[in-house]
């Protein structure tokens, strides 16, 4: 590996070596003795590592080196910045770390901290999840920098979520490869032969460039692969030596031009076969999960559904279909599937789970009840790009489902062809049938809406506050704004997506993908950042358990003035797990031990309860709550909305029903 060390760098490294050696082998010296040794500049003198530096030590650490590292050349990491800038990346959420200090310095001092701009994060899991949420609104990936070993370990869960959710994130981890030259102690603890191995099972591609030209190719390739559906995270290991060496002849280096790859479309023969089945079907059903990549995806799906007057079940991995449309039939999903003769699945994360039922009741030797939900004669069609990019270890590909027409391709890219093929395949003598189907759907849609409103009225005045009430109190305050719901809503019984009219692609952003907790809060902040550029109002229902994985992201939102209304869905527990343990106790015919809590030991966030309003305000965020009386919601929310409209984040803590 190319590695040009100036004298200054060497000296600094020797100094570091002394520090680290002392940390490992010697008992701490008294402060004075240690500082004296440090100022004497003897690398061999034993020194503890956590003492206040003398002026000389501080200067060596922070000052401008006398003999510049770049003697005879520019910093290599400046060139890296040129490469990064060629891809128009908006932000770089990161927690700072020594292993990418060279690039860090270049990004802010040479790159001017613009495109990309740093976002200071307090945890790498938050950095990646912010990039995850950002992409879902902006459609552009962010660059995440992390410390190669420990930082990447922090980031790993969030990378897995992005992988499962088919979201591109460009992750770059610093590492110091040359074992004979890197500082011993901490920096060596933080280096590895192959940091990428940690996340290779759930990244689309990774590389460890060994030269600057190699870096340019790797970075553009990484970006290109990440942005080709199925979108996925990618990983680049970035050697410290490569960042910090001097670049002598910039003119020899080139930056490859980025040309987006056209998304893969399903095979036309398969498209025609699918169209034939759909056109001839009496009871076709369309199901969409991680389907609509852009607003066009929504438009295409409306066209297809209308051509067939086929009901659409939106599994909400993305905002796929307007819930205001009469063909939106989520409320009748089970009944429709049971009767369906042809089912079209668009980017379904779990086809098996869609057409089969699973009941966790311990039957079947503990495996639970598993039964088909569809007619044996039903024909299944799938369009999914995930088939093009499957790995073995992690099981995000889900259970195996036999389908009759299986297209490896991007569903959104395939839909225009499918719509045309369906229109051609539709027999003219069936127009009446299809219209009748549409009329039935209109009635079913209205009935479902009335039933949903009715269901929302139960426990309307309850304390803890009903999740339906909370959702509608929030909606009343934001309905006239251009809003975007940037948190998940499954944990509050999906009330927002059942009751709020959602017809724009940014009205919700789907879920975490891998269901790794700790996603929601930072992803919401990332999505809100993307909405900020559009002048949109972002609202996040924030589960308490998720909040506590990484509350530091509240500070990041304040620091970078990211307007976001977070409404705590504070049910004071890891409620899913409360129910799991309760289920086990009942099944085993034992009384669940609650300790002093109101759900099984180990699953509650109470005794003491957590004051989220104080948590937020401790980080400089406007906050209110905890609110336990539903009648107090409106005034608090009204104030919070004003704060957010003025460009700052705000939080309202609401003590809620479990779901």
């Amino acid at each position: 590996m190319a590695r040009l060390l100036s004298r200054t760098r060497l000296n600094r490294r020797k100094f570091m070596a002394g520090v680290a050696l002392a940390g490992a082998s010697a008992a701490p010296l008294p402060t004075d003795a240690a500082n004296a040794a440090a100022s004497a500049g003897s690398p061999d003198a034993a020194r503890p590592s956590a003492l206040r530096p003398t002026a000389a030590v501080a200067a060596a650490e922070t000052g401008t080196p006398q003999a510049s590292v770049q003697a005879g050349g520019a910093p290599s990491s400046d060139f890296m910045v040129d490469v990064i800038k060629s891809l128009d990346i908006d932000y770089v959420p990161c927690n700072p770390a020594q292993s990418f200090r060279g690039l860090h310095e270049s990004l802010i001092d040479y790159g001017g901290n613009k495109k990309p701009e740093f976002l200071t994060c307090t945890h790498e899991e938050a950095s990646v999840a912010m990039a995850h949420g950002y992409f879902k609104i902006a459609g552009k990936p962010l660059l995440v920098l992390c410390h190669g070993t420990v930082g990447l370990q922090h980031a790993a869960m969030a990378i897995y979520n992005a992988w499962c959710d088919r979201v591109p994130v460009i992750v770059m981890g610093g590492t110091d490869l040359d074992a004979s030259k890197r500082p011993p102690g901490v920096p060596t603890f933080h280096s590895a032969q192959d940091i990428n191995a940690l996340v290779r099972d759930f990244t689309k591609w990774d590389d460890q460039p060994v030269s600057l030209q190699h870096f340019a190719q790797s970075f553009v390739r990484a970006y290109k692969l990440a942005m080709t559906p199925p979108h996925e995270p990618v990983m680049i290991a970035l050697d410290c030596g490569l960042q910090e060496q001097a670049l002598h002849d910039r003119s020899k280096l080139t930056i490859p031009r980025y040309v987006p790859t056209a998304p893969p479309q399903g095979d036309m023969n398969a498209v025609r076969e699918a169209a034939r089945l759909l056109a001839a079907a009496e009871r076709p059903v369309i199901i969409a999960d991680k389907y609509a990549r852009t607003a066009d995806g929504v438009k295409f799906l409306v066209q297809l559904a209308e051509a067939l007057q086929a009901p659409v079940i939106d599994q909400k991995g993305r905002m796929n279909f307007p819930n205001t449309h009469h063909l939106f039939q989520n409320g009748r999903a089970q009944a429709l599937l049971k009767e369906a003769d042809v089912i079209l699945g668009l980017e379904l994360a779990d086809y098996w789970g869609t057409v089969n039922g699973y009941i966790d009741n311990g039957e079947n030797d503990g495996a639970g009840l598993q039964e088909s939900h569809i007619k044996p004669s039903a024909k299944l069609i799938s369009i999914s790009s995930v088939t093009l990019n499957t790995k073995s270890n992690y099981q995000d590909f889900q259970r195996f489902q036999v389908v009759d027409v299986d297209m490896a391709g991007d569903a959104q890219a395939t839909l225009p062809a499918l719509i045309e093929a369906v229109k051609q395949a539709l027999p003219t003598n069936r127009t009446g049938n299809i219209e009748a189907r549409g009329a039935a759907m209109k009635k079913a849609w209205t009935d479902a809406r009335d039933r949903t409103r009715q269901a929302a009225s139960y426990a309307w005045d309850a304390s803890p506050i009903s999740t339906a009430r909370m959702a509608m109190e929030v909606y009343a305050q934001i309905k006239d704004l251009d809003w975007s719901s940037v948190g998940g809503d499954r944990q509050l019984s999906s009330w927002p997506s059942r009751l709020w009219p959602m017809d724009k692609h940014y009205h919700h952003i789907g879920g975490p993908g891998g269901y790794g907790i700790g996603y929601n809060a930072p992803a919401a902040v990332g999505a809100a950042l993307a909405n900020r550029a559009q002048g949109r109002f972002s609202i996040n229902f924030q589960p308490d358990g998720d909040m506590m994985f990484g509350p530091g992201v509240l500070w990041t939102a304040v620091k970078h003035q990211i307007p976001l209304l977070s409404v705590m869905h504070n049910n004071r527990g890891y409620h899913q797990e409360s129910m799991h343990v309760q289920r086990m106790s009942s099944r085993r015919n034992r009384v669940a031990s609650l300790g002093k809590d109101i759900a099984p030991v180990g699953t509650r966030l109470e005794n003491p309860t957590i004051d989220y309003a104080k948590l937020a305000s401790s980080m400089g965020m406007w906050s209110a709550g905890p609110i336990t009386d539903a009648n107090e919601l409106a005034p608090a929310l009204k104030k919070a909305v004003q704060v957010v409209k003025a460009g700052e984040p705000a939080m309202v803590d609401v003590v809620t029903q479990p779901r």
Partner: protein
Amino acid sequence: MRMCVIIAGLVFGLNVGQEVASAASAEHGKTAFIQNGCWQCHGTMGQGSIMTSGGKRLAPDPLPWETFSAFVRSSNRAMPPFSEKILSDNDLADIYAYLLSIPKPPDTASIPLLKE
């Protein structure tokens, strides 16, 4: 027996004595509803959720007592059963009294937030 009083109250209307008896048991029933974990999947007012109770609601207007108690004891589907060993007949009757005591929600037409 307390359970009979409640059922009589349900079927024949309440006289003063029965009202007292059922009020007392409804109060303990609320505690039992929490202590035994019913609230976790059904919400503290039995309102239920599409996520956790298959959209089933326990109140107001709970199932008839026989169906209700038989279901709790023997459910073998999405709800775990609660045998007499872990949930006494008395507690289950009190839970039922609590569910009976939950009033109807306001009419959706009278809730402005649930209108268009």
